[in-house]
């Protein structure tokens, strides 16, 4: 295949735009994570292929009384365990995002898993996030100090907000 200088120029222009988007123009910002840590997120991610990689992150939103969301920031789930401070005594919306990309950069896909969470004061939340061989799972366990075994919190999407 032959490439004209114009084509090469356009290709690099597109790459620059992509780099710009990925490096800060995309609207993604780190979650401040300044509150008392009341949750630990344990992540295991493996695409199951040597030609692609998968990364995980969680977008954290606050939810207003009339069920509107306000983006607070994103926590990159790179390590095996990340401690997070989720605003207590109010409704939050957690969007777990799994991004799968090929090493050659030819394709990229994301899939997300959303749930509402009302973090209670004094409670601790153990969140297991996994993506193994194209199957993902998010499990949230509420560890009440009075009930150390905890209880599983069911996934609730935004349609459940008005009932809460």
């Amino acid at each position, binding site marked *: *295949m032959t490439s004209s200088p114009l*084509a090469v120029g*356009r290709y690099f222009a597109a790459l620059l735009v992509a780099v710009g988007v990925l490096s800060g123009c995309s609207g993604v910002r780190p979650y401040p994570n300044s509150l008392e840590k009341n949750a630990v997120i344990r992540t295991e991610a493996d695409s199951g292929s040597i030609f692609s990689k998968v990364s995980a992150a969680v977008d954290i939103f606050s939810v207003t009384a009339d069920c509107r969301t306000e983006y607070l920031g994103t926590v990159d789930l790179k390590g095996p365990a990340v401690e997070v401070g989720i605003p207590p005594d109010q409704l939050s919306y957690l969007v777990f995002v799994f991004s799968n990309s090929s090493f050659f950069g*030819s394709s*990229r896909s994301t*899939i997300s898993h959303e749930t509402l969470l009302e973090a209670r004061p004094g409670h601790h939340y153990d969140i297991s996030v996994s993506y193994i061989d*194209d*199957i993902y799972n998010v499990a949230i366990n509420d560890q009440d100090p009075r009930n150390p075994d905890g209880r599983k919190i069911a996934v609730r999407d935004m349609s459940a907000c008005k009932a809460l």
Partner: protein
Amino acid sequence: MKETFAYWAVGAGLAAVMTGCGTMPQTADEFRKAVPGAMTAKVETFEVERPFSAVAATFEEKGPECLNKTVTTTSTTPGQYGPVVSTYTVTYKPTVRVTGDKAELHVQQHSDNTVKVYQEPEGGYYLLVADAYPVSENRTRIDLYCPSIGQKVLIKAVKGWGTGESVGCPDLTQ
């Protein structure tokens, strides 16, 4: 990506499969009847060591949680005048029906990027139907009507919900 976009085209209604008679299944029942005679679809029957109520409960929980999704995949390929970016958007619609002796999971798929040669049912072309029946107190039979090409991740997930060995969600972009 281990499975290409071509699989989406296959999955988007199993078009080549069921068009022998010139129509596409418009209901889950029509889909069940069409699959045994289709070239790229199959029926799998297996039994699991779980009570019927547990299988039905997993379908009810995981169907909406995992399959009520719209997914977008972007691919970039080099072109003569610069990179060519292709975006595919597919919407999935799960339906779960549970009665005393049968639990059904239907999965439909709608794509904005495909040409609709055949009439598409409301909610999209039928992609998979799983029927669970009680066999005994702790045993359940599952009939799975699904594509024989592609959609391996979806099929693996639904089987996991049946056996109870895995309750994860399929990455529908794969």
